Protein backbone atom coordinates (compact mmCIF):
# COMPACT_ATOMS: atom_id res chain seq x y z
CA UNK A 1 0.00 0.00 0.00
CA UNK A 2 1.32 3.40 -0.98
CA UNK A 3 0.11 6.76 0.26
CA UNK A 4 1.28 10.04 -1.22
CA UNK A 5 0.48 13.20 0.71
CA UNK A 6 0.82 16.73 -0.65
CA UNK A 7 3.97 15.80 -2.53
CA UNK A 8 5.99 18.74 -3.81
CA UNK A 9 9.17 18.31 -5.82
CA UNK A 10 11.19 20.72 -7.93
CA UNK A 11 14.20 20.48 -10.23
CA UNK A 12 16.37 23.53 -9.64
CA UNK A 13 13.75 26.30 -9.66
CA UNK A 14 10.95 24.59 -11.56
CA UNK A 15 8.19 22.74 -9.72
CA UNK A 16 7.61 19.36 -11.36
CA UNK A 17 5.13 18.15 -8.73
CA UNK A 18 2.94 20.64 -6.98
CA UNK A 19 1.00 19.10 -4.10
CA UNK A 20 0.09 15.61 -5.30
CA UNK A 21 -2.07 13.43 -3.06
CA UNK A 22 -2.95 9.87 -4.08
CA UNK A 23 -3.34 6.40 -2.69
CA UNK A 24 -2.56 3.04 -4.28
CA UNK A 25 -4.36 0.07 -2.83
CA UNK A 26 -3.15 -3.50 -2.98
CA UNK A 27 -3.83 -5.33 -6.22
CA UNK A 28 -4.99 -2.29 -8.16
CA UNK A 29 -4.16 -1.49 -11.76
CA UNK A 30 -3.72 2.26 -11.95
CA UNK A 31 -3.02 4.37 -15.02
CA UNK A 32 -1.04 7.52 -14.46
CA UNK A 33 -1.92 9.72 -17.39
CA UNK A 34 -0.74 13.09 -18.63
CA UNK A 35 1.04 14.79 -21.50
CA UNK A 36 4.78 15.30 -21.86
CA UNK A 37 6.22 17.18 -18.92
CA UNK A 38 3.14 16.71 -16.74
CA UNK A 39 5.23 15.05 -14.00
CA UNK A 40 4.58 11.31 -14.48
CA UNK A 41 8.22 10.23 -14.41
CA UNK A 42 9.02 12.44 -11.46
CA UNK A 43 6.06 10.99 -9.60
CA UNK A 44 6.98 7.35 -10.27
CA UNK A 45 10.53 7.98 -9.09
CA UNK A 46 9.13 9.02 -5.76
CA UNK A 47 7.27 5.74 -5.34
CA UNK A 48 10.54 3.81 -5.68
CA UNK A 49 12.48 6.16 -3.39
CA UNK A 50 14.78 7.28 -6.21
CA UNK A 51 13.64 10.83 -5.53
CA UNK A 52 12.67 12.12 -2.10
CA UNK A 53 9.98 14.77 -1.55
CA UNK A 54 10.89 18.41 -1.04
CA UNK A 55 7.63 18.73 0.85
CA UNK A 56 4.94 16.24 1.80
CA UNK A 57 5.38 12.51 2.26
CA UNK A 58 5.40 9.22 0.41
CA UNK A 59 4.58 6.18 2.55
CA UNK A 60 5.28 2.64 1.37
CA UNK A 61 3.54 0.23 3.77
CA UNK A 62 3.35 3.12 6.20
CA UNK A 63 7.13 3.77 6.04
CA UNK A 64 8.08 7.26 4.79
CA UNK A 65 10.55 7.00 1.88
CA UNK A 66 12.73 9.78 3.27
CA UNK A 67 13.29 7.70 6.39
CA UNK A 68 13.89 4.40 4.63
CA UNK A 69 14.36 4.57 0.87
CA UNK A 70 15.73 1.03 0.81
CA UNK A 71 12.35 -0.29 1.87
CA UNK A 72 10.74 1.53 -1.06
CA UNK A 73 13.32 0.11 -3.50
CA UNK A 74 12.62 -3.43 -2.34
CA UNK A 75 8.86 -3.18 -2.36
CA UNK A 76 8.37 -1.06 -5.46
CA UNK A 77 9.94 -2.29 -8.69
CA UNK A 78 10.43 0.45 -11.22
CA UNK A 79 11.16 0.25 -14.95
CA UNK A 80 12.47 3.26 -16.85
CA UNK A 81 11.01 5.00 -19.84
CA UNK A 82 14.23 4.32 -21.75
CA UNK A 83 14.67 0.56 -21.36
CA UNK A 84 18.27 0.52 -22.59
CA UNK A 85 19.40 2.86 -19.83
CA UNK A 86 18.11 0.40 -17.25
CA UNK A 87 20.58 -2.31 -18.25
CA UNK A 88 23.43 -2.79 -15.77
CA UNK A 89 25.11 -6.02 -16.90
CA UNK A 90 26.45 -7.61 -20.06
CA UNK A 91 24.18 -10.60 -20.29
CA UNK A 92 20.43 -10.90 -19.71
CA UNK A 93 21.01 -13.44 -16.95
CA UNK A 94 23.45 -11.21 -15.06
CA UNK A 95 21.12 -8.28 -15.47
CA UNK A 96 18.12 -10.10 -14.02
CA UNK A 97 20.34 -11.36 -11.18
CA UNK A 98 21.34 -7.82 -10.22
CA UNK A 99 18.32 -7.10 -7.99
CA UNK A 100 18.41 -10.42 -6.10
CA UNK A 101 22.16 -9.96 -5.59
CA UNK A 102 21.46 -6.62 -3.94
CA UNK A 103 18.99 -8.37 -1.65
CA UNK A 104 21.94 -10.50 -0.51
CA UNK A 105 20.23 -13.79 -1.40
CA UNK A 106 22.01 -17.15 -1.55
CA UNK A 107 23.28 -18.30 -4.93
CA UNK A 108 20.63 -21.02 -5.37
CA UNK A 109 17.86 -18.61 -4.51
CA UNK A 110 19.23 -16.01 -6.97
CA UNK A 111 19.28 -18.63 -9.71
CA UNK A 112 15.73 -19.68 -8.86
CA UNK A 113 14.50 -16.07 -8.99
CA UNK A 114 16.27 -15.42 -12.30
CA UNK A 115 14.77 -18.52 -13.91
CA UNK A 116 11.34 -17.77 -12.52
CA UNK A 117 11.35 -14.12 -13.63
CA UNK A 118 12.70 -15.00 -17.08
CA UNK A 119 9.99 -17.60 -17.44
CA UNK A 120 7.29 -15.15 -16.34
CA UNK A 121 8.16 -12.76 -19.17
CA UNK A 122 9.01 -15.42 -21.73
CA UNK A 123 12.73 -14.61 -21.76
CA UNK A 124 14.17 -18.01 -20.90
CA UNK A 125 15.72 -18.32 -24.37
CA UNK A 126 17.37 -14.91 -24.00
CA UNK A 127 19.37 -15.51 -20.80
CA UNK A 128 22.77 -15.81 -22.51
CA UNK A 129 22.23 -12.93 -24.90
CA UNK A 130 23.57 -9.41 -24.58
CA UNK A 131 20.78 -7.00 -23.60
CA UNK A 132 21.98 -4.64 -26.32
CA UNK A 133 21.23 -7.14 -29.07
CA UNK A 134 17.57 -7.59 -28.18
CA UNK A 135 14.52 -6.26 -30.01
CA UNK A 136 12.51 -3.50 -28.35
CA UNK A 137 9.85 -5.87 -27.05
CA UNK A 138 12.41 -8.38 -25.77
CA UNK A 139 14.34 -5.67 -23.96
CA UNK A 140 11.16 -4.36 -22.31
CA UNK A 141 10.31 -7.83 -21.07
CA UNK A 142 13.86 -8.33 -19.78
CA UNK A 143 13.74 -5.07 -17.80
CA UNK A 144 10.43 -6.21 -16.37
CA UNK A 145 12.04 -9.52 -15.36
CA UNK A 146 14.84 -7.52 -13.70
CA UNK A 147 12.37 -6.04 -11.23
CA UNK A 148 10.12 -9.12 -10.94
CA UNK A 149 13.12 -11.10 -9.68
CA UNK A 150 13.04 -8.89 -6.58
CA UNK A 151 9.43 -9.98 -6.00
CA UNK A 152 8.06 -6.50 -5.44
CA UNK A 153 4.51 -5.78 -4.20
CA UNK A 154 4.17 -2.87 -6.58
CA UNK A 155 5.27 -2.40 -10.19
CA UNK A 156 5.84 1.21 -11.23
CA UNK A 157 6.25 1.20 -15.01
CA UNK A 158 7.26 4.32 -16.89
CA UNK A 159 5.91 4.32 -20.47
CA UNK A 160 6.40 0.55 -20.78
CA UNK A 161 5.20 0.49 -24.38
CA UNK A 162 7.35 3.33 -25.72
CA UNK A 163 8.81 2.41 -29.08
CA UNK A 164 7.14 -0.98 -29.40
CA UNK A 165 5.31 -2.33 -32.43
CA UNK A 166 1.93 -4.02 -32.09
CA UNK A 167 3.31 -7.47 -31.29
CA UNK A 168 5.78 -6.06 -28.79
CA UNK A 169 3.02 -4.03 -27.18
CA UNK A 170 0.75 -7.04 -26.80
CA UNK A 171 3.46 -9.25 -25.34
CA UNK A 172 4.36 -6.63 -22.72
CA UNK A 173 0.75 -5.78 -21.80
CA UNK A 174 0.02 -9.50 -21.38
CA UNK A 175 2.88 -9.93 -18.89
CA UNK A 176 1.87 -6.88 -16.91
CA UNK A 177 -1.73 -8.09 -16.68
CA UNK A 178 -0.53 -11.54 -15.59
CA UNK A 179 1.47 -10.04 -12.75
CA UNK A 180 -1.51 -7.96 -11.69
CA UNK A 181 -3.68 -11.07 -11.65
CA UNK A 182 -1.15 -12.69 -9.31
CA UNK A 183 -1.86 -9.84 -6.89
CA UNK A 184 0.87 -7.32 -7.70
CA UNK A 185 -0.20 -3.69 -7.65
CA UNK A 186 0.51 -2.02 -10.99
CA UNK A 187 1.02 1.70 -11.68
CA UNK A 188 1.60 2.50 -15.35
CA UNK A 189 2.62 5.97 -16.49
CA UNK A 190 1.56 6.60 -20.07
CA UNK A 191 0.17 9.24 -22.37
CA UNK A 192 -1.99 6.67 -24.17
CA UNK A 193 -4.41 4.57 -22.10
CA UNK A 194 -5.78 2.51 -25.00
CA UNK A 195 -3.74 -0.71 -24.59
CA UNK A 196 -4.44 -0.84 -20.84
CA UNK A 197 -7.87 0.61 -20.40
CA UNK A 198 -9.79 -2.69 -20.25
CA UNK A 199 -7.62 -3.87 -17.32
CA UNK A 200 -7.30 -0.64 -15.35
CA UNK A 201 -9.25 -0.24 -12.14
CA UNK A 202 -8.43 3.43 -11.85
CA UNK A 203 -6.86 6.33 -13.68
CA UNK A 204 -5.15 9.45 -12.35
CA UNK A 205 -4.48 12.38 -14.63
CA UNK A 206 -1.58 14.75 -13.96
CA UNK A 207 -1.30 18.17 -15.48
CA UNK A 208 1.50 20.55 -14.71
CA UNK A 209 2.43 18.62 -11.57
CA UNK A 210 -1.10 18.45 -10.17
CA UNK A 211 -3.76 15.76 -10.04
CA UNK A 212 -6.60 17.02 -12.18
CA UNK A 213 -8.67 13.83 -12.44
CA UNK A 214 -8.84 10.69 -10.34
CA UNK A 215 -11.45 7.98 -10.88
CA UNK A 216 -12.40 4.81 -12.70
CA UNK A 217 -11.64 4.76 -16.43
CA UNK A 218 -15.38 4.93 -17.14
CA UNK A 219 -15.80 8.09 -15.09
CA UNK A 220 -12.74 9.71 -16.59
CA UNK A 221 -13.09 8.96 -20.25
CA UNK A 222 -16.81 9.62 -20.54
CA UNK A 223 -15.90 13.18 -19.63
CA UNK A 224 -12.98 14.51 -21.60
CA UNK A 225 -9.25 14.26 -20.95
CA UNK A 226 -7.85 15.54 -24.21
CA UNK A 227 -7.39 19.00 -22.76
CA UNK A 228 -4.69 17.42 -20.59
CA UNK A 229 -2.83 15.93 -23.53
CA UNK A 230 -4.26 12.46 -23.05
CA UNK A 231 -5.88 10.62 -25.91
CA UNK A 232 -9.39 9.22 -25.29
CA UNK A 233 -9.29 5.46 -25.89
CA UNK A 234 -11.27 4.20 -28.88
CA UNK A 235 -13.74 2.34 -26.70
CA UNK A 236 -14.99 5.67 -25.31
CA UNK A 237 -15.35 7.65 -28.50
Amino acid at each position, binding site marked *: MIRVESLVYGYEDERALDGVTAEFKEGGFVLLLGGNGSGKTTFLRHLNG*LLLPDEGNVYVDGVPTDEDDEHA*RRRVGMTFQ*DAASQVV*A*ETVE*DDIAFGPENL*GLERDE*IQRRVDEAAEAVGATELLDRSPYELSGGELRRVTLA*GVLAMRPDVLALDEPLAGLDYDGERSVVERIVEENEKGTTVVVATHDATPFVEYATRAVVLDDGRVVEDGTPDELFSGGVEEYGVRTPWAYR
Partner: protein
Amino acid sequence: MKFAYRDRDTFLHCADARAKLAALVAVSLALTWASALATVAVGGAAYAAARSADVRGREILHDVRLVLLILVVGTAARALSDPDGVAAGTAAGAVASGRFVVIIALAYVVSATTRTGDVRLAVEFFLAPVPRVNEKDWGTMFAAAARFFPLVFEESKRVQEARKARLGDKQGWYTRIRSTAFTLLTRSFRRADTLALAMESRGYDSDRSSLRSLEWRRGDTALVAVSVVIAAFAVAF
Protein backbone atom coordinates in the same frame (compact mmCIF):
# COMPACT_ATOMS: atom_id res chain seq x y z
CA MET B 1 31.25 -3.67 -28.57
CA LYS B 2 34.46 -1.96 -27.59
CA PHE B 3 36.35 -3.06 -24.52
CA ALA B 4 33.25 -4.97 -23.57
CA TYR B 5 32.60 -8.55 -22.57
CA ARG B 6 31.44 -10.86 -25.33
CA ASP B 7 29.96 -14.22 -24.54
CA ARG B 8 32.07 -17.06 -26.00
CA ASP B 9 33.35 -20.39 -24.90
CA THR B 10 37.13 -20.12 -25.31
CA PHE B 11 39.84 -21.04 -22.80
CA LEU B 12 40.29 -17.42 -21.73
CA HIS B 13 36.55 -16.90 -21.33
CA CYS B 14 36.39 -19.87 -18.99
CA ALA B 15 39.53 -18.91 -17.10
CA ASP B 16 39.24 -17.54 -13.57
CA ALA B 17 39.13 -13.73 -13.46
CA ARG B 18 41.81 -13.79 -10.75
CA ALA B 19 44.20 -15.65 -13.06
CA LYS B 20 43.56 -13.21 -15.89
CA LEU B 21 44.03 -10.13 -13.72
CA ALA B 22 47.19 -11.56 -12.15
CA ALA B 23 48.58 -12.38 -15.61
CA LEU B 24 47.71 -8.92 -16.89
CA VAL B 25 49.42 -7.20 -13.97
CA ALA B 26 52.53 -9.42 -14.11
CA VAL B 27 53.10 -9.00 -17.85
CA SER B 28 52.29 -5.26 -17.81
CA LEU B 29 54.77 -4.61 -15.01
CA ALA B 30 57.45 -6.65 -16.76
CA LEU B 31 56.90 -4.71 -19.98
CA THR B 32 58.00 -1.54 -18.22
CA TRP B 33 61.56 -2.92 -18.34
CA ALA B 34 61.32 -4.82 -21.61
CA SER B 35 63.68 -4.22 -24.53
CA ALA B 36 62.42 -3.59 -28.05
CA LEU B 37 62.84 -7.22 -29.03
CA ALA B 38 61.13 -8.52 -25.88
CA THR B 39 58.26 -6.07 -26.44
CA VAL B 40 57.72 -7.40 -29.94
CA ALA B 41 57.81 -10.98 -28.63
CA VAL B 42 55.28 -10.23 -25.87
CA GLY B 43 53.17 -8.41 -28.48
CA GLY B 44 53.16 -11.63 -30.47
CA ALA B 45 52.02 -13.55 -27.41
CA ALA B 46 49.27 -10.95 -26.80
CA TYR B 47 48.12 -11.37 -30.39
CA ALA B 48 48.00 -15.14 -29.99
CA ALA B 49 45.97 -14.71 -26.79
CA ALA B 50 43.56 -12.37 -28.60
CA ARG B 51 43.07 -14.81 -31.46
CA SER B 52 42.46 -17.68 -29.07
CA ALA B 53 39.73 -15.58 -27.45
CA ASP B 54 38.08 -14.83 -30.80
CA VAL B 55 39.23 -11.20 -30.74
CA ARG B 56 40.73 -9.96 -34.01
CA GLY B 57 43.86 -7.83 -34.04
CA ARG B 58 42.22 -5.47 -36.48
CA GLU B 59 39.38 -4.84 -34.00
CA ILE B 60 41.81 -3.82 -31.28
CA LEU B 61 43.71 -1.49 -33.59
CA HIS B 62 40.48 0.04 -34.80
CA ASP B 63 39.13 0.61 -31.30
CA VAL B 64 42.31 2.15 -29.93
CA ARG B 65 43.18 4.14 -33.05
CA LEU B 66 42.93 7.41 -31.18
CA VAL B 67 45.50 6.20 -28.66
CA LEU B 68 47.73 5.09 -31.54
CA LEU B 69 47.49 8.54 -33.08
CA ILE B 70 48.50 10.15 -29.80
CA LEU B 71 51.44 7.75 -29.48
CA VAL B 72 52.64 8.52 -33.01
CA VAL B 73 52.42 12.26 -32.36
CA GLY B 74 54.20 11.77 -29.03
CA THR B 75 56.96 9.74 -30.65
CA ALA B 76 57.43 12.38 -33.35
CA ALA B 77 57.62 15.14 -30.75
CA ARG B 78 60.13 13.16 -28.77
CA ALA B 79 62.22 12.37 -31.88
CA LEU B 80 62.48 16.04 -32.78
CA SER B 81 63.44 17.17 -29.29
CA ASP B 82 65.81 14.37 -28.26
CA PRO B 83 69.29 15.68 -27.37
CA ASP B 84 70.84 12.43 -28.72
CA GLY B 85 69.44 13.03 -32.18
CA VAL B 86 66.36 12.18 -34.16
CA ALA B 87 67.19 8.50 -34.67
CA ALA B 88 67.78 7.79 -30.99
CA GLY B 89 64.67 9.76 -30.06
CA THR B 90 62.53 7.88 -32.55
CA ALA B 91 63.79 4.54 -31.28
CA ALA B 92 63.16 5.40 -27.64
CA GLY B 93 59.70 6.78 -28.41
CA ALA B 94 58.78 3.78 -30.51
CA VAL B 95 59.76 1.32 -27.78
CA ALA B 96 57.78 3.22 -25.13
CA SER B 97 54.76 3.41 -27.46
CA GLY B 98 55.08 -0.26 -28.34
CA ARG B 99 54.99 -1.30 -24.68
CA PHE B 100 51.93 0.80 -24.14
CA VAL B 101 50.14 -0.69 -27.15
CA VAL B 102 50.86 -4.23 -25.94
CA ILE B 103 49.52 -3.43 -22.47
CA ILE B 104 46.36 -1.95 -23.97
CA ALA B 105 45.90 -4.98 -26.21
CA LEU B 106 46.19 -7.29 -23.20
CA ALA B 107 43.68 -5.22 -21.22
CA TYR B 108 41.38 -5.38 -24.25
CA VAL B 109 41.56 -9.16 -24.30
CA VAL B 110 40.91 -9.40 -20.56
CA SER B 111 37.86 -7.13 -20.81
CA ALA B 112 36.53 -9.05 -23.81
CA THR B 113 36.70 -12.33 -21.91
CA THR B 114 35.73 -11.34 -18.36
CA ARG B 115 32.29 -10.41 -17.04
CA THR B 116 32.32 -7.25 -14.94
CA GLY B 117 30.69 -9.24 -12.14
CA ASP B 118 33.75 -11.50 -12.12
CA VAL B 119 36.07 -8.49 -12.12
CA ARG B 120 34.31 -7.39 -8.96
CA LEU B 121 34.76 -10.78 -7.30
CA ALA B 122 38.44 -10.96 -8.29
CA VAL B 123 39.24 -7.48 -6.98
CA GLU B 124 37.42 -8.32 -3.75
CA PHE B 125 39.49 -11.49 -3.45
CA PHE B 126 42.82 -9.69 -3.92
CA LEU B 127 41.99 -6.81 -1.58
CA ALA B 128 40.34 -8.84 1.18
CA PRO B 129 43.64 -9.43 3.08
CA VAL B 130 44.65 -5.76 2.88
CA PRO B 131 43.88 -4.04 6.18
CA ARG B 132 41.84 -0.83 6.27
CA VAL B 133 40.67 -1.32 2.69
CA ASN B 134 36.99 -1.98 2.04
CA GLU B 135 37.37 -4.61 -0.67
CA LYS B 136 33.64 -4.54 -1.50
CA ASP B 137 33.75 -0.86 -2.37
CA TRP B 138 36.87 -1.26 -4.48
CA GLY B 139 35.44 -4.29 -6.26
CA THR B 140 32.34 -2.28 -7.09
CA MET B 141 34.40 0.64 -8.31
CA PHE B 142 36.48 -1.51 -10.67
CA ALA B 143 33.40 -3.29 -11.97
CA ALA B 144 31.60 0.02 -12.55
CA ALA B 145 34.62 1.38 -14.41
CA ALA B 146 34.83 -1.77 -16.54
CA ARG B 147 31.15 -1.39 -17.28
CA PHE B 148 31.30 2.32 -18.00
CA PHE B 149 34.21 2.18 -20.46
CA PRO B 150 32.31 0.44 -23.28
CA LEU B 151 29.39 2.81 -22.74
CA VAL B 152 31.64 5.76 -23.54
CA PHE B 153 32.74 4.05 -26.75
CA GLU B 154 29.14 3.42 -27.68
CA GLU B 155 28.23 7.04 -27.01
CA SER B 156 31.13 8.20 -29.13
CA LYS B 157 29.88 6.10 -32.02
CA ARG B 158 26.40 7.55 -31.62
CA VAL B 159 27.67 11.12 -31.53
CA GLN B 160 29.67 10.52 -34.70
CA GLU B 161 26.71 8.95 -36.47
CA ALA B 162 24.40 11.77 -35.42
CA ARG B 163 26.88 14.29 -36.80
CA LYS B 164 27.39 12.36 -40.02
CA ALA B 165 23.63 12.10 -40.57
CA ARG B 166 23.53 15.87 -40.79
CA LEU B 167 26.70 16.16 -42.87
CA GLY B 168 28.81 17.10 -39.86
CA ASP B 169 31.70 15.14 -41.37
CA LYS B 170 32.02 17.84 -44.03
CA GLN B 171 33.29 20.26 -41.40
CA GLY B 172 36.97 20.86 -40.84
CA TRP B 173 38.79 18.48 -38.50
CA TYR B 174 39.31 21.04 -35.76
CA THR B 175 35.61 22.02 -35.53
CA ARG B 176 34.72 18.37 -35.76
CA ILE B 177 36.96 17.21 -32.92
CA ARG B 178 36.12 20.16 -30.71
CA SER B 179 32.34 19.82 -30.94
CA THR B 180 32.39 16.01 -30.87
CA ALA B 181 34.56 15.98 -27.77
CA PHE B 182 32.27 18.34 -25.94
CA THR B 183 29.11 16.44 -26.85
CA LEU B 184 30.78 13.16 -25.97
CA LEU B 185 31.84 14.45 -22.59
CA THR B 186 28.39 15.67 -21.59
CA ARG B 187 26.73 12.54 -22.93
CA SER B 188 29.16 10.31 -21.08
CA PHE B 189 28.45 12.10 -17.83
CA ARG B 190 24.75 11.73 -18.40
CA ARG B 191 25.26 8.05 -19.21
CA ALA B 192 27.19 7.54 -15.97
CA ASP B 193 24.34 9.26 -14.18
CA THR B 194 21.64 7.00 -15.63
CA LEU B 195 23.77 3.92 -14.95
CA ALA B 196 24.01 4.95 -11.31
CA LEU B 197 20.27 5.61 -11.25
CA ALA B 198 19.51 2.22 -12.79
CA MET B 199 21.65 0.50 -10.16
CA GLU B 200 20.07 2.49 -7.38
CA SER B 201 16.52 1.78 -8.52
CA ARG B 202 17.14 -1.92 -7.99
CA GLY B 203 18.39 -1.37 -4.48
CA TYR B 204 22.13 -1.32 -5.18
CA ASP B 205 24.13 -2.34 -2.14
CA SER B 206 27.90 -2.83 -2.15
CA ASP B 207 27.48 -5.56 0.44
CA ARG B 208 25.75 -7.89 -1.97
CA SER B 209 25.77 -11.55 -2.88
CA SER B 210 26.55 -12.94 -6.32
CA LEU B 211 24.97 -15.33 -8.79
CA ARG B 212 28.37 -16.33 -10.06
CA SER B 213 31.38 -17.58 -8.19
CA LEU B 214 35.02 -17.82 -9.18
CA GLU B 215 36.39 -21.28 -9.69
CA TRP B 216 40.12 -21.93 -9.87
CA ARG B 217 41.04 -24.75 -12.22
CA ARG B 218 44.29 -26.31 -13.34
CA GLY B 219 44.21 -24.27 -16.52
CA ASP B 220 44.30 -21.12 -14.39
CA THR B 221 47.48 -22.19 -12.65
CA ALA B 222 48.95 -22.88 -16.10
CA LEU B 223 47.85 -19.44 -17.33
CA VAL B 224 49.55 -17.70 -14.40
CA ALA B 225 52.68 -19.86 -14.80
CA VAL B 226 52.98 -19.04 -18.49
CA SER B 227 52.48 -15.33 -17.77
CA VAL B 228 55.17 -15.34 -15.12
CA VAL B 229 57.57 -17.04 -17.56
CA ILE B 230 56.73 -14.44 -20.21
CA ALA B 231 57.18 -11.65 -17.68
CA ALA B 232 60.55 -13.03 -16.54
CA PHE B 233 61.64 -13.39 -20.15
CA ALA B 234 60.60 -9.81 -20.90
CA VAL B 235 62.63 -8.47 -17.99
CA ALA B 236 65.68 -10.66 -18.68
CA PHE B 237 66.09 -9.80 -22.37
